[in-house]
């Protein structure tokens, strides 16, 4: 059965990208353990607004773990202490009564803070724009069943395609590397027949853009895959490395 708990919150507050931020402490009572983590923050904001204070701002939208909008570094983990879920799927029953919860934004040079817990992830869009697609104009596609694809291949491609672009991998990585994110998209298309024509160009272009935007290098610590809310496996990075080397060798 659900009960209510009290929590102590230490939340990073920062007015703008250039301003200095700091932790601010808040105490919250009567939090239902059936509430989600973001509903707990809604409660906090309701109290703040009642006192005429500005709410703590954080990105969120679908609140069911698929849009990739929510972020938050909770007690040292991107998306909180429970593996395989996003912050919006985290529930307060995972916290003890009286617990102290530290909440920070994603911390990475490539993701500057906009305000409080909101960061700018437009670098991810830029990487996708560099090559994360099959160059195919609408209209004139052959019948969908014209090219059979084995179930095994389709399933692995689907696992890669599951990436929600939240940025937890970058936040988790001590180097701030975006390799898991990039490799998921490169893998999806490298596996499928539709992606073959542009396979090399895609790997080159996406890696080059990633480097240009200030993401760090990969040193295979595996923190990204461990913290990924969609459990995107590390094997994608191995595949990206192969794709990139093959592309470079053919230059």
């Amino acid at each position: 059965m659900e009960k209510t708990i009290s929590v102590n919150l230490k939340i990073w507050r920062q007015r703008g990208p250039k301003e200095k931020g700091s932790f601010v402490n808040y105490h919250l009572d009567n939090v239902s353990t059936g509430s989600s983590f973001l509903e707990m923050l809604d409660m906090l904001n309701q109290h703040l607004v009642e006192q005429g204070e500005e709410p703590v701002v954080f990105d969120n939208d679908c609140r069911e773990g698929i849009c990739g909008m929510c972020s938050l570094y909770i007690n040292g983990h991107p998306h909180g202490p429970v593996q395989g879920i996003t912050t919006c799927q985290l529930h307060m029953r995972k916290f003890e009564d009286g617990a102290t919860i530290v909440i920070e934004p994603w911390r990475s040079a490539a993701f500057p803070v906009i305000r409080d817990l909101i960061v700018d992830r437009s670098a991810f869009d830029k990487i996708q724009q560099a090559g994360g697609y099959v160059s195919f104009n609408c209209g004139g596609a052959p019948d969908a069943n014209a090219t059979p694809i084995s179930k095994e291949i389709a399933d692995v491609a689907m696992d890669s395609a599951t990436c929600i672009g939240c940025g937890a991998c970058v936040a988790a990585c001590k180097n701030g590397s975006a390799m898991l994110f990039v490799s998921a998209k490169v893998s999806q298309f490298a596996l499928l027949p539709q992606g073959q024509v542009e396979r090399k160009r895609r790997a080159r272009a996406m890696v080059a853009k990633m480097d240009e935007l200030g993401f760090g290098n990969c040193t295979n610590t595996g923190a990204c895959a461990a913290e990924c809310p969609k459990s995107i496996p590390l094997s994608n990075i191995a595949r990206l490395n192969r794709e990139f080397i093959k592309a470079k060798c053919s230059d």
Partner: protein
Amino acid sequence: MIDPVKLNDMIDSSPIMQDFADIESSKLPEYQVDSKIPEGPIAEKWTNYKAHQKLVNPANKRHLDIIVVGTGLAGASAASTLGEMGFNVLNFCIQDSPRRAHSIAAQGGINAAKNYQNDGDSIYRLFYDTVKGGDFRSREANVYRLAEVANNIIDQCVEQGVPFAREYGGLLANRSFGGAQVSRTFYAKGQTGQQLLLGAYASLNRQIQKGTVRSFVRREMLDVVIIDGRARGIIVRNLVTGEIERYAAHAVVLATGGYGRAFFLSTNAMGCNGSAAVQAFKKGAYLANLAFTQIHPTCIPVHGEDQSKLTLMSESLRNDGRIWVPKKKEDAEAIRAGKKKPTDIPDEDRDFYLERRYPAFGNLCPRDIASRAAKERCDAGYGVGTGNAVYLDFKYAIERLGEDVVRDRYGNLFDMYQMISDDNPYETPMMIFPASHYTMGGIWVDYELQTSIKGLFAIGECNFSDHGANRLGASALMQGLADGYFVLPYTMQNYLSDQIKVPRFSTDTPEFDKAEKDVRDRIAKLMAIKGTKSPDEIHKRLGHVMWNLVGMGRTLQGLVKAISEIDEVRKEFYSDLRIVGSADDLNTELEKALRLEDFLVIAKMMAIDALNRNESCGAHFREEYQTADGEAARRDDLYMYVSCWKWTGDDSKPILIKEPLHYEAIKVQTRNYKS
């Protein structure tokens, strides 16, 4: 108390509606709509249209600008396809990336009439099922076109690299959805919307890279700018800086989704809103069939007052899950009191009420019917959980298929359920209850998807077009992509063909000045209220009114009461709203307040539309109009029309305009899912 039937007769002859709508003006000849349905037999209409429509040559396309607001399935597919054709596209979204639009959360699948399963499917059958599912309140020609282009969508998405589920032989897999007796739903695990949206996002990215599409994120449209009777631009608020910005174009496309959050609690994302529709409404676009709001039968029940949203459990679960409540009231009471568990109830004491009432379709009957049946059982005292829940049980599927197969098919949904409810659905049945999910109603559009304002188009969920009074599962993705990939890019050329001489224009015009001033005044007015209630508090109050009185079961008295209660909430909004922070800055409270102000307009129009429609059809269930066994009773002689509403002012009555519906290719009949 007046006899409700008598009251309804009075409404039919209009005395009560006169309190809420301008009945006299409705009769004027200028209030007619032209749906521009092409000539010819239904199967040839779209072909004929395309053969005879006007085109724009490639050299002219790059001189024409098109604004697309929204980046969901409809918006992203339209923006990318228009860009591919060579138009210059400006694409806006409120999120931090186009990839986050709420289409991403669609779980179950997308319909098409491929007949890959050799089970008798055809374009006609998909068309027929959709019109029937919509309870004969949709425009026949639009639905046929939708069914016709559905197959192209699947081809298109496979070519984009969308990893649809496949059989071991390498061909595409299908599953069944409600309202159909064939397997025509294509899917990618329980994440079909995500994969389709990422496909459209990828195409969009390719155009952004090429420079044909410019992407503007974290921007919210606050007005549409009309110049000489045509939509020529938009005013947006930059959500990061608070700046008000102007953008001009030759045409404007709204792809801004539905207004389901009028109920506050819904399966929609937190940012989903009906504001673009209200802005268009206030500039002269009609809103149509607003009473048609879909309440989805399988959502995780409400847990408490602090809840912010509800989570959907995909309709695909009804392929293998069986829905039941206890047959005996004392069992239901014991379960609610925590004295019994669902697993304590033997099979013979379980009431599989959908299988009992609708043997031909069973657990896969359409959403409106499944939702009402759940409400009927709960209202009768057989509900479980808090009393507002029924069971969705996989025990039988696990016995038949084994746990591994069930895990393979629905694993991610089961995990999601367990995360939220803390129950293991492999061991104990899921608890579900209906929740606001989708809005069939929306901005009125003609066959070309153009609104009643020239040059203003509406696509996807934000228009009213294809689903009638009830949408079938896996048809929202189909409609969004049909509009964006295959319909709008054609009809847009027909509109722009005589605009090629119109030069790209500046935003320094009196019309833009006025629109920006109106937006600034509106924001200043809300900031100046300085009351005590947050936007969320007031929104919750509105949500309660809407759920209780304009929800699954509506009555004449209830709707009249709803309108006066919405007016009360509106009064509270304008007198006691508090927005902390500044308007010239990132301000999430201001964003919520602006959206809520528009929800108040839509909510009242929903209630008025529901009050006007004295019949039950699809998701619109007026309790006065039901058959002896509790089914919806349509009144085709009086209400076989699209109810279009024209705005006349904040404090004056809207005008009702009727677009009559004609069915030539389909015989209108009573929906039957029993035999």
